[in-house]
């Protein structure tokens, strides 16, 4: 893989940021200040960053309920994300969506998605628009092994093939959909093989190996930019924490968790780049320190940030709506 030092440093910084962000949320969730459901991406960093290091702001990604890693990999600001996850006014979506709905159009991040299987058709549409507008922008569609069984995912793969859309489908196979193993839910169990049936190139890669992911991603994205159509990547990975914060994780054993943790993507990245003399360990340590400070600040700011105003409940439902027709608060004198 030919990545220059700056790109390697940046990739490490993003993976490290995701890990720090997620570890911190895991620790703080028990405090009770974080609303709703939170699904952590720790363990899967190499997938999001391996893909997104090839992208610019004009390229799009679609994400999932486990979206923090995709956001950070695509360059979404961690302070805005943290405030959003805490449901506060300065959040990336003004505290209206929380963990599962972070979006940032300026960064081409089309949204985390609470609906499993919500992303693929959206990715295809964004890709079709990129194509019709005559750009060479591409769309990365992240989804899980569970989502690979939704009709929308299969419809999206077919549409992308029919119209040769610049989409890269990335199935993050972390072994489970909630508590159900993919060995039970995925017929044939070979997710990558499914895509070949739609006439697109498809590979399975070690999702804990940044370089393997980045290499497969580079080819797929270049192909999409050249107008040659979609590619499918199954990234075999693992989520370190439960399905959501609060999950008792009764469906997998500690031995399995250990076997994945021992192949941790960040440790391996560090090992590879330092042993090959590509980046100094001290530089990586400096990143670790800076990232820890950044996340600490993001949490402090999120905690002290104001809640969304009550009136914001009615905003952003429509672009244009006659004010006289808004029911909200009009006939109810009581404000809580």
């Amino acid at each position, binding site marked *: 893989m030919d990545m220059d030092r700056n790109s390697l440093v940046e990739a490490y910084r993003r993976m490290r940021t995701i890990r720090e962000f997620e570890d911190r949320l895991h620790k703080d969730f028990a405090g009770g200040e974080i*609303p*709703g*459901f939170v699904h952590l991406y720790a363990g899967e960093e190499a997938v999001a960053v391996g893909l997104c290091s090839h992208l610019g702001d004009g390229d799009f990604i679609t994400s999932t309920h486990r979206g923090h890693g995709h956001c950070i990999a695509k360059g979404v600001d961690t302070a805005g994300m943290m405030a959003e996850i805490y*449901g*506060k006014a300065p959040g990336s979506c003004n*505290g*209206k*969506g*929380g963990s*599962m*709905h972070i979006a940032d159009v300026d960064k081409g991040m089309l949204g985390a998605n*609470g*609906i*499993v*299987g919500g992303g693929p058709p959206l990715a295809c549409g964004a890709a079709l628009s990129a194509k019709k507008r005559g750009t060479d922008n591409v769309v990365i569609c992240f989804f899980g092994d*569970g*989502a690979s*069984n*939704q*009709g*929308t995912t299969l419809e999206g793969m077919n549409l992308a093939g029919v119209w040769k859309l610049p989409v890269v489908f990335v199935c993050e196979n972390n072994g489970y*959909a*909630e*508590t*159900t193993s993919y060995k*039970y*839910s*995925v017929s044939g169990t070979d997710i990558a093989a499914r895509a070949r049936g739609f006439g697109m190139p498809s590979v399975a890669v070690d999702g804990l190996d940044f370089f393997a992911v980045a290499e497969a991603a580079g080819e797929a994205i270049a192909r999409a930019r050249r107008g040659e159509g979609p590619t499918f990547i199954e990234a075999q990975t693992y989520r370190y924490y439960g399905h959501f914060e609060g999950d008792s994780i*009764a*469906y997998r054993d500690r031995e399995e968790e250990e076997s994945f943790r021992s192949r941790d993507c960040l440790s391996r990245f560090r090992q590879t780049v330092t042993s090959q003399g590509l980046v100094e360990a001290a530089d990586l340590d400096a990143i670790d320190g800076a990232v820890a400070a950044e996340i600490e600040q993001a949490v402090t700011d999120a905690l002290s940030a104001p*809640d*969304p105003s*009550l009136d*914001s*409940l*009615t905003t952003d*439902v429509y672009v244009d709506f006659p004010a006289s027709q*808004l*029911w*909200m608060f009009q006939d*109810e*004198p*009581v*404000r*809580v």
Partner: protein
Amino acid sequence: MSVVTLAQALNRSLEHALAEMDDVVVMGEDVGRTGGVFRITDGLADKFGPDRVIDTPVAESGIAGVGFGMAVGGLRPVLEMQFMGFSYPAFDQIINHVARIRHRSRHRFTAPLVIRIPYGGGIGAAEHHSESAEAIYCHTPGLKVVVPSRPGDAAGLLRSAIEDPDPVVFLEPIRLYRSVKEDVPDTSFTTPIGAASVEREGSDLTIIAWGAMMKEAREAAAALVEQGVDTEVLDVRSLVPLDVESLVASVQKTGRAIVVHEAPRTVGFGAEIVAQIQQRCLYHLQAPVERVTGWDTIFPLKRSEHVYLPSVERILAAANTVLSA
């Protein structure tokens, strides 16, 4: 009899149905070994095996469609959707097929299935994890729609839904799963679908609600009674078919009514109830019927949830309006 939560009552009712009816099958995401996201099917896979308590892939359209085929083929599937918002991917199957097969086949086929859907807010999550979309199902001819608010009704109505020859959308108030308890028979029993329940008789005012909002309705009624307002409380329980007679009898007696629901106001099911009341009780009404509902917006995250959800205070304010008219 034993004192159980609404969640336990549902679990026991499912267990009884599986034990007593050979054609009953439970199916959904993580319902087997895990016992479902809310543990409503806890222990059932151990007792009845994976052929009768079936884990599915994440595929709501498939779950509803396969359940439909099973029902047409002679089984009585009880399907679980994990949250209200995840039933939307199943709309096509439910609305286009499940609801219509009897009419379409000129009664040669029926689809005796139950679709269990946890619904409503109060858990701090936005959007599809907290919504109340009952009106959409009520607006679909061919479906029955049932919403219990207490453990006994939950068990009895679920059994009725399973035995019912028509498809039943069975809504379960998430907020009440573990917060209400009552004495429930240890053996199976049915509670008729299509009958409202007058929980408290009164002569001054009728509060009409269902599902999770019954909690606020009961609390508001208690406060009103304390103030000397003799308040009648009506738990609708069955939205389709709707027990219009009980509604009418109550409002003709009290002359004043408030409808409370958690769903957004516009075209909420409250609108249907108000329409029925004005048509049948106009000359008995002492005041316009008030609605206390969720707002016409997307269900918010935790920090604004208390503003979105109808509160006891808002019901009391509506009562004040109705009583001073």
